[in-house]
């Protein structure tokens, strides 16, 4: 696969604080790349550097084959960024905002207009194109933000927590827009998010902690490595069940009303259930989630 972003040994310090401490990673062309980490892990700094806003202290970054620091303008032409905060002008209409921001890319008025027509369709702005940005609802604003990021038909779209602060329904519709966008254009999407159900849909996940990369892989690989399936049994007689489990030589943890057994895979549950079937009233086998994987990966790092 072709690499569209290549980062090697990237470093950035603020005084004594090493915000980004020599990280390296690649992003494949056309993929949905999720960039995770707790607050203060160095995610934003990394994105600020890749999107040409911040100068790194050291390391090499290539975006779309252009070297960061030398061909910044070439990079800027090929990226679109949806920032965490709304950065359009509240006193101008959506259309005015898009006309102004579109003019940054060296397009003529006619080209910008054609571009706006195109993004309206992709993002669904029809109804509020001529309303002032400041008067829009949160979801409409986000749509306008995405439209702005798409105005130059970017090859890479950066989304910095695009759904934070939105209600679940709006979040879903914004997410669907992003998904539709990828299916139709094959655009590379670089996403940061705090919602693991969004990260779970990524092609590749990189988790940052304290300026370093602490885990990376596909969502399935991460789940396998950092989370485990669990058998939860609601007991009738706690001590009898515990005794049986000791006899079977399986590790368990106590929970409220249940005893939980960590599994390498769900199939392992079958012999345990067989052996203990008299001793519980009900059971469930739970698959590991991205939430667990994220917590375990970042938690291990804290220790």
């Amino acid at each position, binding site marked *: 696969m072709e690499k569209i972003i290549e980062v090697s040994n990237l470093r950035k310090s603020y005084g004594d604080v090493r915000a980004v401490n020599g990280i390296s990673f690649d992003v494949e062309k056309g993929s949905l790349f999720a960039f995770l980490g707790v607050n203060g892990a160095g995610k934003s700094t990394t994105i600020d550097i890749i999107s040409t806003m911040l100068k790194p202290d050291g390391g090499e970054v290539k975006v779309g084959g252009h070297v960061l620091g030398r061909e910044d*303008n070439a990079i*800027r032409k090929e990226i679109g960024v949806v920032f965490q905060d709304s*950065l359009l*002008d509240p006193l101008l209409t959506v259309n005015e905002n898009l006309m*102004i921001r579109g*003019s940054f890319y*060296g397009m003529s008025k006619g080209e910008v207009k054609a571009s706006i027509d195109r993004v309206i369709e992709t993002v669904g702005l029809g109804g509020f194109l001529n309303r002032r940005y400041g008067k829009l609802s949160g979801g409409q604003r986000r749509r306008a933000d995405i439209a702005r990021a798409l105005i130059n038909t970017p090859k890479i779209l950066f989304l910095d927590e695009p759904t934070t602060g939105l209600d679940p329904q709006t979040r879903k519709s914004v997410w669907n827009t992003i998904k539709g966008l990828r299916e139709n254009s094959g655009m590379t999407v670089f996403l940061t998010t705090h919602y693991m159900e969004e990260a779970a849909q990524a092609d590749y996940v990189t988790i940052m902690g304290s300026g370093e990369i602490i885990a990376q892989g596909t969502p399935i690989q991460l789940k396998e490595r950092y989370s485990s399936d669990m058998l939860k049994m609601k007991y009738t007689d706690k001590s009898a069940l515990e005794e049986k489990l000791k006899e079977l030589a399986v590790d368990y943890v106590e929970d409220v009303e249940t005893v939980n057994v960590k599994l390498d895979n769900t199939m392992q549950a079958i012999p345990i259930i067989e052996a203990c079937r008299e001793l519980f009233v009900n059971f469930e086998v739970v698959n590991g989630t991205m939430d667990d994987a994220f917590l375990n990966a970042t938690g291990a790092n804290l220790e």
Partner: protein
Amino acid sequence: MFTMAKRNIKLYFRDKASVFFSLMAVLVIIVLNIFFLTDSLNEGLGEIPNIKILVGTWLVAGIVAVTTTTTALGALGTMIEDKSRKIYKDFYTSPLKRSSLAGGYIISCMVVSFIMSLIALAAGIGYVVYLGGDIPSTATILETVGIILLAVLANGSFMFFITSLLKTSSAFSTFSTVVGVLIGFLMGIYMPAGNLPDGVQWVVKVFPPTYSASALRTVLMDDILNDTFSGFSAPEGYEIFTRADFEKFMGVNFEFGDCTTNLMTAIIVMACASIVFCGLSVISMSRKNK
């Protein structure tokens, strides 16, 4: 660059509060004059014929000069807003040249200041006519517009330089308030420069924007001063009895030792201020852009 300038101008005029507050100093001057100043001046100088029209024209010149400064500052609110709301992030990740960004702010600040000053001038002429004065000749109006243009350049770049040093909205609004309050004193508009204590008169004389007021007074008041002082002889013991005295007292021109400033001096001061503050702004902007 021109799209950015257009954007900034739109943002200024759509924000009614910013338009209002950038005219705050002008409103203060008008109110002060209605209630105190004009009457006391008219009384004190009452022997001079046409004094009402003379003082009215003097006031209009001062108001236009203040407008060039405060509205320029008002328009620069966009620049601070872009900084404090981090809107610059959007600009910095776009292939928009930093110089176009800065140029956009400068152009919009000058254009806003010029438009507002012309409006102030038109309203001011209306006021003078209401007082019984004549509509200035076309030549005078053209000259005045020329001076306004220069004043906009000088005062606009002065305000731009200071704004480029500020980072937060609160610092900027504090600065705007200070300018709004002080500018009337510093340009000798709240009261004639001649009424101020000596120390303050010095500050007035060395404050560059003062010369935009001085130049506007010279041009706008010339005709009526000619009319008034031809054949006027002050009564015995009267403090102000010649045109030169009157001009000095009202801050039409200033005295440094034996030299008196004139229109040319004011134009030179404004031209120099434009060049110096534009230069300083460029240094300040490029320093921040790393």
